[in-house]
């Protein structure tokens, strides 16, 4: 059986593969120095405290070594001196698509953003390179007191909330890339949901890289006040450039007492983007944070969404789907830090490795000794399509305390020839049968996604794999 061939696989990465000529008013040039930071601060007219914050972060970034003692050596191929750290068109985000510059508007129209907004979103922010091009929130939602703006605007207009939480969940020194983001961050969302407000429809942000050698460093901060509920979705694309592009975001979530935050990511970067993202949430008493993370694109993704379960009965959940094709390494996972009694966490990770793709699960669960009644459940399932596909699992679990329990399970499997045979007997082509099996594998996770995403996901993983049944 021809098992080592890489199958034809249609995962629609090409939907984002187009670009318009660059037209930037502000360009910080290539390379990173204190001057770059001064440039960004001057353009954004930022206060001195944020300038100091950025400069301190730059120092931390320079001091920290590349984490290649455990992570992929591919990180060493990133040349920080060749990256462009800030590119912007120089205008404020528009409230209406009519005011958005023509080529930017066309970009987002091709990606279907305005259409989705009309259909099912409560608010949209669309980021083009370093700054948001469009930001709007439906009136009914803003009347409830919900704030949904870009991070720069959040910083300027709502400093009393912003400063209180900014950098508190993920300190600058957390890791090398969090420090890089803290030094040069631009864009991203700032969301505040007042006590008791339940935002009925999702808020969405869309991130687009349009320029070559560009590094996108958005910074998102979401605060759900007591009893509030909010769902946030992000999508990302970039055209295929000849050189590698860097995306390094920091996302901080704060769920105060009884609040619920659901954060959904569908990552479909082109296959030369390094996607190195730090995402973490703090869940206070009885709060619930759910990360739904879907990684299909990028060259190397390193992303381990975490929840610090700080209040009694807080709950954290990570549902993750990763698909690694030829030349891709999806190094994803989850972190659950139990820091209060009776906290519970759940991690379900499903990965599919196709061709020479490699998917890795890396996890951390910790329960310190003074805690009682904490529970964690971790399941990682990996599906290997070809003989040369690869999957790794590296969990780390520390347990102490009373009445705490953890369980971790992982399994690795392939699509069984019998299943395929059964379906072919009933008239499906081999490719259709394979596609159906793969969709079956992720189905119980995909159904947690909002309807529109779940349909989209199934379409994305519509595999064409004639002759690849190993």
């Amino acid at each position, binding site marked *: 059986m021809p098992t080592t061939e890489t199958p034809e696989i249609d995962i629609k990465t090409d939907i984002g593969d187009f670009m318009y000529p660059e037209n930037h008013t502000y360009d910080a040039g290539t390379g990173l120095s204190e001057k770059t930071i001064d440039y960004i601060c001057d353009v954004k007219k930022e206060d001195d405290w944020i300038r100091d914050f950025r400069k301190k972060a730059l120092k931390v970034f320079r001091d920290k070594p590349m984490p290649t003692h455990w992570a992929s050596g591919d990180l060493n191929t990133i040349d920080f001196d060749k990256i462009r750290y800030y590119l912007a068109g120089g205008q404020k985000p528009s409230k209406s698509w009519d005011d958005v510059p023509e080529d930017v508007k066309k970009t987002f129209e091709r990606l279907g953003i305005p259409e989705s907004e009309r259909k099912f979103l409560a608010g949209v922010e669309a980021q083009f390179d370093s700054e948001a091009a469009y930001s709007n929130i439906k009136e009914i939602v803003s009347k409830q007191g919900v704030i949904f703006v870009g991070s720069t605007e959040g910083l300027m207009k709502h400093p009393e909330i912003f400063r209180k939480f900014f950098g508190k969940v993920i300190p600058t020194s957390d890791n090398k890339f969090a420090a890089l983001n803290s030094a040069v961050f631009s864009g991203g969302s700032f969301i505040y949901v007042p006590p008791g407000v339940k935002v009925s429809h999702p808020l969405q942000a869309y991130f687009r890289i349009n320029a070559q050698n560009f590094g996108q460093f958005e910074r998102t901060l979401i605060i759900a006040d007591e009893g509030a509920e909010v769902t946030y979705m992000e999508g990302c694309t970039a055209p295929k450039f000849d050189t590698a592009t860097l995306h390094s975001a920091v996302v901080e979530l704060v769920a105060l007492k009884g609040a619920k935050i659901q954060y959904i990511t569908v990552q479909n970067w082109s296959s030369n983007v390094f996607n190195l993202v730090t995402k973490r949430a703090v869940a206070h008493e009885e709060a619930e944070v759910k990360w739904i993370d879907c990684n299909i694109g990028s060259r190397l993704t390193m992303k381990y969404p975490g929840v610090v379960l700080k209040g009694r009965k807080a709950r954290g959940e990570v549902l993750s789907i990763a698909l690694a094709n030829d030349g891709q390494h999806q190094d994803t996972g989850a972190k659950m830090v139990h820091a209060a009694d009776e906290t519970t966490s759940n991690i379900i990770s499903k990965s599919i490795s196709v061709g020479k793709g490699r998917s890795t699960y890396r996890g951390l669960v910790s329960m310190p000794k003074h805690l009682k009644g904490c529970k964690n459940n971790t399941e990682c399932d990996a599906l290997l399509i070809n003989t040369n596909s690869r999957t790794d699992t*590296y969990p780390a679990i520390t347990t102490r305390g009373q009445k*705490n329990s953890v369980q971790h399970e992982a399994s690795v499997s392939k699509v069984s020839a019998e299943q395929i045979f059964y379906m072919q007997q009933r008239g499906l082509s081999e490719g259709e049968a394979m596609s159906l099996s793969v969709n079956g594998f992720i189905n119980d996770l995909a159904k947690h996604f909002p309807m529109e995403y779940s349909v989209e996901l199934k379409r994305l993983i519509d595999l064409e794999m004639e002759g690849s049944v190993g």
Partner: protein
Amino acid sequence: MSSLVPESLSPSLESFWQKTQSDTSAAPAWWQKRKAAEWEKFQSLPMPRRTDEDWRFARINSLNFDGYTEPQPIDEEGKRLLEERSLLPTEVAGVLIFINDRLVSFQAVDPKLAEKGVVWKPLSQAVEEDSDLLEKHFMSQPIELGSEKFSALHGALCKEGSLLHVPKGVEIDKPFVAYHWASGENASIFPHTLLIADEMAKVTLVDYFASADPNSRNLAIGVNDLYAGKGAKVTYLSAQNWSLNSLAFHLNSTQAFRDAFITSLNLHLGGSLARTESHSQILGENAHTEMLSLTVANGEQQFDQRTLQTHYKGHSVSDLLYKNALFDNGRTIFSGLIRVLEDAQKTDAYQTNRNLLLDPTAEANALPGLEILANDVKCSHGATTGQIDEEQLYYLLARGIPRKEAYKLLTYGFFEEVLEKLENSEIQEHFRDLIKSKFQTS
């Protein structure tokens, strides 16, 4: 170098090495050369660092060579007492008892078996008489799980242990037993075990390790290498009961060739810090290895377990089960990895770590890993950490059994799943007694 204990701080080991050199001046040249190379390696390698992935979660500041020295010979009375304490099954194929890396008792193999070519002898003797066999196999399989420095120290200072070679087609049902005692404050011993089972051979070997005095401080670095040729059936059992002040390493490398079947069971009770490394290499199709371990951690004890199952060839099975019971401030680290290489299709590999926390201050760390490069495999790993089942406890309490006693009984039950796999009922009973004796002293 961020080495925590500069090597110059262990002058006692330095003089130990000089003594070893002069003691082995009459030994074969390759042996002297190998030892010198290992000493050099020991000196050049850095101490483990906090950031080393191989030492994740380990408290490396308790690694300290300070004061460890060459052990002294002990008097006749001491010998007699330790020989008496060496529990032996009634039927054995051969016995070796060592105190402080010196042979004190040797029961040779039955002459009929010796005629068939079975070799069972102390390492010091084997260096002279079976030089070729030893040269080929002595520490030829690096384990590479983090303790390279300590393994090199073993290579340099090791002078005793057991060599067991069972030739093609010879089946021995009775077990071979070796005892390794460490006696005296700061006594350092380096017991070596080399088991070579040729094609279709069948053999069982048991290693016991213990400190003579429960309060002495000892350093023990043991290496055991197992080879199972085509269709060989090898059972390796070991129990260590070092003193609670000891620093102990048990480094194991196992090679399984086609159709071989290997079972290993290691019981770990002693040591203030005991690190075990075990690398099981599946080199032939249809090979089957079973890796079992039982550990009781109490007081301030730390057990650091690192395992690797590498499947080079497919249609093979490896199955690992490590069970840890933790009391007081006991701490365990289980870090395991299953690695299935590209050509090892149709591999079944399993890895299970079960931790039973009996006190809220005990800490269990689990790092169960998988690296799968082939697609037609069945691999799973599971790690669970939990408390005693409330209902089971209630049942025992309701029958008037004190809580502490109930915990013990439930721990015995937790271990029984593994112990009952032992075919030799006497050794099974020895292991049970060792576990029980640990609870009596604490």
